[in-house]
């Protein structure tokens, strides 16, 4: 008996949405085995990780707080990935967005008024766009892979942030901690309730805007065509370079917005660890959400749960905080694995004939 993958005559629409659910199920099974191997009761551990955070108001609120940057970055990445542009450096664009958005509150703290907050947000967006424009330029000018360039720029951005908060931007009254001064009240994104801030509304607006863009506009159609069949895009008269530039800068701008929204709305100042890897986790959110803006919202909530569940498991079970990364990685691997079945189905056949056609092409 030999198992083969056979291409389906048409992609399975059912599998497109079943695949993330299947991946989640496999992640739970994987988690159970992992916890058992660590010497914990698997059912109780999974309860602590995935269910308990849903049972009290504080952690529900915290899930939305963490889902906000994920959704903002994730919808941008969904646009980029649909355009066949592999922006892996959202974490860097998030960081530079946070830095640029902090220029005014840190360097001109005396400037107050109703205009400061919009200016801060715009600076954040521009910072993210500029950081993403670097790999975009290298891609369209020299054909270099944006996967590598955007990823490498993440580390540059993180070192830049580190240098700023330990050097020129260190708070003079901060007892030498590597932190900037606190944002003044007018530069802080207003709260909605508790730790929830207005940035969540911005994220939902971005989701709605990109859903309309991708599904209903000629521009969005252009992105999709260029991503799916670049030659057909050129034949239609769409500019591939333009689409690549736009997809990268828009996704970078949204990551930058997520960065400054987090700093201004949740943290209140710059310090070296403003992100628990949102820019990378958002890649998972984009795929888990089927590169569909609305799907990304749900995927972001689920991934936010893995962050909170990780904290909960750390406290209740004493496991390492690295468990969060393990679970997020498992989800991505399983969802990509299950996605194979969108295009292929399993086929079983006896061994004898299989050997005869072992080698086909030269």
């Amino acid at each position, binding site marked *: 008996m030999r198992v083969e993958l056979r291409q389906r005559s048409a992609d399975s629409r059912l599998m497109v949405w079943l695949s993330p659910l299947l991946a989640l199920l496999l992640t739970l099974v994987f988690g159970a085995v992992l916890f058992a191997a660590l010497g914990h009761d698997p059912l109780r551990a999974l309860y602590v990780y995935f269910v308990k955070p849903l049972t009290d108001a504080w952690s529900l609120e915290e899930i939305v707080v963490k889902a906000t940057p994920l959704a903002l970055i994730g919808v941008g990445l969904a646009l980029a990935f649909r355009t066949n542009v592999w922006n892996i450096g959202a974490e860097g664009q998030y960081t530079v967005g946070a830095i640029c958005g902090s220029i005014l509150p840190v360097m001109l703290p005396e400037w107050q008024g109703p205009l400061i907050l919009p200016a801060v947000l715009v600076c954040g967006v521009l910072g993210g766009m500029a950081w993403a424009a670097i790999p975009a330029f290298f891609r369209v000018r020299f054909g270099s892979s944006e996967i590598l360039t955007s990823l490498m720029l993440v580390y540059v951005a993180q070192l830049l942030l580190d240098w700023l908060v330990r050097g020129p931007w260190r708070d003079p009254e901060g007892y030498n901690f590597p932190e900037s001064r606190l944002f003044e009240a007018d530069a802080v994104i207003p709260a909605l309730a508790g730790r929830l801030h207005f940035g969540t509304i911005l994220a939902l607006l971005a989701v709605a805007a990109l859903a309309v863009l991708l599904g*209903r*506009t000629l521009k969005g159609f252009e992105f999709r065509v260029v991503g*799916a069949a670049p030659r057909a895009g050129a*034949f*239609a*008269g769409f500019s591939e370079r333009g689409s690549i530039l736009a997809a990268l800068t828009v996704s970078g701008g949204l990551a930058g917005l997520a960065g400054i929204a987090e700093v201004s709305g949740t943290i209140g100042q710059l310090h070296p660890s403003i992100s628990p890897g949102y820019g990378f986790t958002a890649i998972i959110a984009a795929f888990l959400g089927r590169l569909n803006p609305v799907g990304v919202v749900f995927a972001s909530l689920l991934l936010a749960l893995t962050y909170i569940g990780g904290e909960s498991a750390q406290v209740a079970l004493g496991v390492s905080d690295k468990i969060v990364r393990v679970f997020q990685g498992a989800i991505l691997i399983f969802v990509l694995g299950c996605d194979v079945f969108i295009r292929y189905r399993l086929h079983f056949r006896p061994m004898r004939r299989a050997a005869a056609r072992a080698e086909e092409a030269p």
Partner: protein
Amino acid sequence: MPGGNVLLEARGIVKSFGGLVANDRIDLTVHAGEIHALLGENGAGKSTLVKILYGSLQPDAGSVNWQGRPAAVGNPAEARALGIGMVFQHFSLFEGLTVAENIALALPRDAAGRGLAADVRAVSESYGLPLDPAARVASLPVGVRQRIEIVRCLLQRPRLLIMDEPTSVLTPQEAERLFETLRRLADEGCAVLYISHRLEEVRQLCHTATVLRHGRVVGRPDPGTASTADLARLMVGAEVGGVGNREGESRPDGPVRLAVRGLSLEAGTPFGVSLEDISLEVRGGEIVGVAGVAGNGQDELFAALSGETPASDRTAVEIDGRPCGRAGPRTRRRLGAAFIPEERLGHAAVPGMRLSENAVLTRHGTDRDISVGGLLRLGRARRLAERIVSRFDVRAPAGDPEAKALSGGNLQKFVVGRELDRMPGVLAVSQPTWGVDVGAATGIRRELAALARGGAAVLAISQDLDEILEISDRIAVISRGRLSPAVPAAETTREAIGLLMGGAGD
């Protein structure tokens, strides 16, 4: 030299793909030490035959004898073990690796040892194919890349070397050096099976020849004595007497609607063809056919007409008298032109998108009601797709299926219908009926003729000479990126066209 022992003997080879018979009871005999030409137009079955000999395809019927013994070549590795080597038209090299590394990849594990670089140098120099084993492939020109492929074969001491259109990517000087190498190999007793459509070089180089047409052997001329005209006649088929022109001898004298003037374009890729000083006028009411063997600049010409590759000069292309050489496809469509490329999936249509979305693909610039203020009117796009489907008899699954769910012929009808439905004033179409069944093909040709009768200028690029002869009022031939003057179809012959296709005009 010919007259050596029979090395390879194929008998009654049959291979069909779906309904298409690519090889129909083909017999082929190759002797040791001979250079044997395999001639034929595109689609004559040459590639299928050599793939069978090289083991990458299995025949439906027929047998292959190798040195007098029956041989079942199950895969290319078995072919190499027998002593059959093949150099493909498009190379399979890793650009980031060195010459020696690329060669090592193709050799059996024990042969790819430490002495390889020295072997490569020795073999390449002894055959006049100098190679630097340490050079990176990315930095090498096409002619040198081909040398790598040849040396890779030679290192395995082949008894039979198959070469698939080796000179199509070479300069004349590079080709001359290649011929010397091949002659030397033949002198040493190696047989060469040489696929080509360049008749002059076949006459110079080859000892024997087998000509295929429509999957059958139509002749075994002696290239030493046959004239290029004889070879051309065999290749394109002379038994169909004169030229079958479409209805009557109407000489359209409408206004020039499509004009190409002195168009030259550098090839964008190593395998591309540069266009050289192409000039052409198509009048309203006529169909001009562009004949030629694949890979002589058809793709480049089409892209230059559609605007996918804009020219540097505004006046290089004019549509209805308006210069648009530097404009993109959208502008040219707005001037009244329409385009139908050869490749349906991935070029004319996006495979994973619905028919309505594929209608938007080329109509968004001209049908103002499909995209209003940047918003797509999907309902209108769907009605447009439905209209095309019903008007052009496209058999498609119900609803609004994805393009890839349609059969080749039906998708072609949709793609053609999408453009004709606009009633364009100028139409450039490449391979209008490629891979389409006879019924649909007839329908499409009829639509093209009707469009021209309605006053449009139609330029049809095709490798199917029968099709060109059937639909064209005037015929031009493209060869190595140059276009011959278009002559009235009634005043030319298959033979003359065949000669031009074989490079006689170069």
